């Protein structure tokens, strides 16, 4: 499957792991301090913004330490141990000790990830200090406690020294995701979304756990430092580099396929992506940090971290590429037909994660990491812009009910930063970081003949992305000024659940000095009379500007000389992978009529992106007089017919899953429940009833309970005899 003639495979991390400085342990410790502080604040009943500032302080310090880690890094990975977590030994030999340290493995991939995790967490914590201010008190403490716990778990996931630490962080971020999605716990939809996220992720986690088991059983260790330096793995890599996959045991080739399942769960890929759009029930800072920028990239991190394991499997990386590309395409088609701008962003996250996986699959780990890096900034920016809109318009997220927001007083910064975010997501040529990172993936996909179709799928998706992104921008931020506030105008937290809206976003307790009136009246009011949009304050604006600036800062970091600084970071880690042509060799691709993708993809993707924007402009901006109706778009919708309707209903995937899995399982559970009640128990009871009935005939008037249950003994015996017979028949 791999085209070995054109690649030179350098073995990853053959440098032995040294010791990392002790203070890197402070990076996970600081958010833990934040957790403890916020818990204490909750117990003390703090009602100020103290939890937020404590959080920002802890996370800011962690971010500084992450920078220190960058400055102090050298080529060799380092390990630091806090304490021994597991150590079970049953012999002296290799693989006869199951051990895992509670400790951290620092290489450049770790540092890269930790930089944007802690940096974004600090910024978004600051943003949330204002955004969540309506809920000061216990809810505020709870929010920031879970927020800190998330950063702690993410640090364990990224910095963990072994697969078990990864698993700890993996489920830990899942827990925080669950707690934060369900933050507005009085809303049934939020509770359901949190539950769904956790359960779907658990399916992935099962795959991950089995992958960890198999890694241990096959390699005899789950410590990264030992695993990646093991001769066994290096031998497999050599075999794989020469295309001799038949020399690699099937068990080793199975490992990445299992780990992959976990990655697909956490990073919302087919077929486990269904939880992420629903996760938008959480407060927007959570959506930005957890469900766009950091947690959902954990799957990408896992594949990148375990890249040597993935390379020794013949089918793993192609499977990753295909799943990624299909997810990217499917999510983009759904995103095109949604009306809720936050959900559109959620689908775009799924879609962009698909790009990252495709990047890993087509063996440009640098491109994938670069896209993770740039995406973290611009997608956080986009979500925070949406959050500002939601905050200002009482939870309104329907793009048919808002128009010309950027022209309103106090909304200029949001408008401009939103435009920057959109351009990045589209990959607007040259001036956006998203362009450079996406381009690496696209070009690489066309290089290998085996993944050309993946490349085309991704290219088409790029066009769709441009369309749906600018559909939002042209509808909501420009055009005639018009707005209808959301349904949570005067609803306080206690009442928010009462309305039962299908997609209200729980942004309750709007701090607006209006006389309280029933929420329904205002919601259906034309609103100009009563409602004044609530322009964002300093914290929100500052964070938006910083993030927008960071998207530009990221350009040189990813664009210069094949991945730039990010490329260097990946180069010095386990995700390192280098194809020969990266050093200058160029050749044409059969999939691009013989053109060299590295040369022409810059232009092709630019054209595709611009075309998407143009279509969005023509359908949603040109000739639109009011928020709800864009004549051109409606004409197009009529042409698209049922396709459009299906896409709007997310291709009925949720319904399909219910039909295929949930409902049969539910029926089965009910059957089991009745079996348990009637058959197993009934058998015992019947056996208990028989002697009492007989006894009743013999001695009328004597059928006590005790007698009945003496018979149940016999029933149990009867069952038991069956078991015994089975045993005996087998031993005979």
């Amino acid at each position, binding site marked *: 499957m791999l085209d070995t003639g054109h690649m030179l495979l350098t073995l990853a991390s053959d440098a032995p792991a040294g010791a990392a400085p002790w203070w890197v342990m402070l990076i996970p410790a600081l958010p833990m301090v934040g957790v403890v502080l916020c818990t204490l604040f909750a117990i003390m009943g703090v009602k100020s913004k103290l939890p937020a500032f404590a959080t920002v302080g802890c996370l800011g310090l962690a971010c500084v330490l992450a920078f220190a880690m960058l400055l102090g890094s050298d080529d060799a990975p380092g390990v630091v141990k806090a304490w021994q977590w597991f150590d079970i030994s049953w012999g002296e030999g290799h693989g006869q000790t199951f051990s895992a340290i509670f400790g951290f493995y620092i290489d450049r991939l770790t540092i890269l990830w930790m930089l944007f995790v802690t940096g974004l967490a600090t910024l978004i914590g600051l943003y949330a200090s204002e955004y969540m201010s309506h809920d000061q008190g216990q809810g505020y403490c709870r929010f920031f406690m879970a927020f800190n716990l998330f950063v702690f778990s993410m640090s364990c996931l990224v910095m963990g020294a072994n697969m078990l630490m990864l698993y700890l962080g993996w489920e830990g971020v899942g827990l925080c995701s669950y707690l934060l999605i369900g933050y507005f716990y009085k809303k049934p939809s939020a509770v359901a979304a949190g539950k769904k996220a*956790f359960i779907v992720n658990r399916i992935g986690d099962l795959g991950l756990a089995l992958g960890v088991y198999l890694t241990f059983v096959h390699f005899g260790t789950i410590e990264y430092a030992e695993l990646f330096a093991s001769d066994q793995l290096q031998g497999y890599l050599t075999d794989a580099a020469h295309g001799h996959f038949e020399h690699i045991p099937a068990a080793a080739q199975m490992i990445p396929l299992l780990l992959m399942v976990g990655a697909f769960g956490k990073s919302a890929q087919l077929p486990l992506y269904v939880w992420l759009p629903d996760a938008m029930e959480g407060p927007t800072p959570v959506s930005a940090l957890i469900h766009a920028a950091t947690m959902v990239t954990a799957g990408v991190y896992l594949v990148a971290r375990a890249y040597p394991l993935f390379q020794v499997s013949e089918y793993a990386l192609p499977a990753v590429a295909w799943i990624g590309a299909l997810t990217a395409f499917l999510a983009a088609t759904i995103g095109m037909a949604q009306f809720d701008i936050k959900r559109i962003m959620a689908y775009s996250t799924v879609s962009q994660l698909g790009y990252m996986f495709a990047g890993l699959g087509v063996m440009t780990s640098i491109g994938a990491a670069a896209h993770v890096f740039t995406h973290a900034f611009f997608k956080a920016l986009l979500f925070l812009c949406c959050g500002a809109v939601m905050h200002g318009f009482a939870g309104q997220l329907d793009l048919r009910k808002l128009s010309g927001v950027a022209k309103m007083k106090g909304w200029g910064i949001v408008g401009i930063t939103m435009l920057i975010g959109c351009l990045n997501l589209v990959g607007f040529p040259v001036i956006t970081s998203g362009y450079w990172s996406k381009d690496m993936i696209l070009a690489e996909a066309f290089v290998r003949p085996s993944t050309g179709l993946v490349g085309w799928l991704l290219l088409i998706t790029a066009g769709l992305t441009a369309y749906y992104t600018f559909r939002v921008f042209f509808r909501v931020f420009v055009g005639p000024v018009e707005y209808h506030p959301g349904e949570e105008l005067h609803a306080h937290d206690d009442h928010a659940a009462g309305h039962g809206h299908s997609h209200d976003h729980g942004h309750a307790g709007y701090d607006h000095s209006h006389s309280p009136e029933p929420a329904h009246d205002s919601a259906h009011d034309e609103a100009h009379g009563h409602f004044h949009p609530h322009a964002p304050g300093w914290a929100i604006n500052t964070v938006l500007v910083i993030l927008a600036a960071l998207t530009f800062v990221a350009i040189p970091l990813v664009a210069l000389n094949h991945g730039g600084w990010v490329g260097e970071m990946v180069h010095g880690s386990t995700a390192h992978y280098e194809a020969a042509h990266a050093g200058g060799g160029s050749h044409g691709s059969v999939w691009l009529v013989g053109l060299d993708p590295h040369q022409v993809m810059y232009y092709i993707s630019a054209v595709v992106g611009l075309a998407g924007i143009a279509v969005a402009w023509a359908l949603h901006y040109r000739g639109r007089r009011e928020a709800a109706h864009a004549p051109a778009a409606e004409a197009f919708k009529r042409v698209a017919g049922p396709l459009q309707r299906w896409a709007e209903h997310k291709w009925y995937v949720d319904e399909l899953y219910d039909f295929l899995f949930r409902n049969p399982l539910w029926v089965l*559970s009910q059957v089991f429940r009745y079996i*348990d009640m009637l058959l197993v128990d009934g058998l015992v009871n019947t056996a208990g009833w028989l002697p009492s009935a007989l006894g009743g005939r013999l001695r009328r008037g004597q059928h006590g309970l005790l007698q009945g249950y003496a018979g149940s003994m016999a029933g149990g015996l009867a069952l038991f005899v069956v078991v015994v017979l089975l*045993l005996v028949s087998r031993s005979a």
Partner: protein
Amino acid sequence: MNSVLIPAAMLIPVIFALAVAIMPAEKARGTALLGMLLGAVPVLGLLFLFDYQNAAAFQFAGSVDWIPEFGLRLSLGIDSVALLLIALTALLGPICVLGSWTAIVERQRLFYSWLLILQTAMLGVFAARDLVVFYICFEFTLLPMFILIGVFGSTNRKIASIKFFLYTFTGSLIALAGLVYVAWYAAGHYGHWTLDIGDLASAARTMSPTQQGWVLAGMLAGFAVKVPLFPLHTWLPLAHTEAPTAGSVILAGVLLKLGTYGIYRFVLGFVPMAVAEHAPMLAVLSIIGIVYAGLICWVQTDVKKLIAYSSVSHLGFCVLGLVAVNATGLSGSILYMLNHGLSTGALFLMIGFMYERYHTRDMGQLGGLASKMPVWSSFMVFFVLASVGLPGLNGFVSEFLCLIGAFQSSSSLVAAGHPGATPGALGPWYAFFAGTGMVVAAMYLLIMVGRVVWGKLVEPHEHHHDDDGSHLPPDLTAREVTALIPLALGCLVFGLWPQPLLGAIEAPVNVAIRSFEFEAPQPTPHPEHAQADAHVGEVAP
């Protein structure tokens, strides 16, 4: 001197039981609490004085001859596995009293006396080095529990208690038959009667596979009912649902562990060959239990019944780890006994506290308690997460180890040269199917939390506080929080730092797995497996 500690730990509760029985009723609960706390002091002594370097040896040993001609002696002694289970029992004792403080208003003396006597019986089971002590205590746990359920339970308490009693009693009788057979065999083997558990184990291992198979079946009848292993579990949901809170906590926390402890000590110790042979069947039963009970939990409406079924599901992991017969599986299984005691015991307490306030356990009538009882809800979510097996909390450690134990335990993997595999008859597929239990557990527990804790506040219509005179505040009292904090700390500390426990049980676990190093006599269908099944080593002494 040290040998006084175990008898002291056992006697103090009995003495206080007598004291409670003759005291005025209003002083019963205070006296009981004092008794439980004082009873825990010698256990603390055990924990500190235990020689962990020599953890497989039975320490603090002491014995009294009874009828020497028949080998009848009363002897006590503990290794680290027994020590940890004794510690769990001693921990749960005072917590049970605190948890029943206001729930039991009538016949308090009866209740607390039997609770204390139950404590002694349970300690005796774990401390026994002798078949007589073991069996007497094992059986004697039934009577107090029968009374706790039958007198202090809910509406169906009579049926539940009788069913509990007869079901488990029948099982134990069959187990007794198996044990007596072993004793008889050992008498022939040694030429004199002995009932010492260690001697019996050595003798029993020399039995033929067929004999071992029968003994296995007999002993399992007793222990598998206790665990409970599918399909012998049907007494448990009823008993749990009807039992008073303290009864449920003890039942889930310790009494079920008598079954798994029995399997560990007697089944694995006495008849390793039969275990090795029948491990797949036992594993399949455990896995069926895990998934079947888990799915039943999913469609339960009674919270307490849900947690009861979840015990069936969870204990399936425990048995799976035992029959994996490798270090990870056994360590995981022993830790599971402790961890399940902490987290499920705590969950039953939580439900008891809720029931005291609302007098219902029906999820249809309860909801959104987070807005009324934030402290209760925080604890509830915490213990549910421990029970779900969230990494960082204790449930994960044991569940993960049981699963990896089942995964590793495959002689064919050993034959294929995987360094991390151990000899055994299970394998990756067992881990996979058992692992689906992880997903199912997340389903039913989070759905329960979603209904009871989150959502809009729903309270029963006829809800009023002042009908029983307890006047509990809406949220947890300091007493209730005091009862929960040790459990919560245990869940957290042993999740993040299980190594002290793992280190403590390493020696006995390695002794146990060495008894499985024998020339496997059973015919194996696949020649490549047969080669792998023939372990190196000799028949253990």
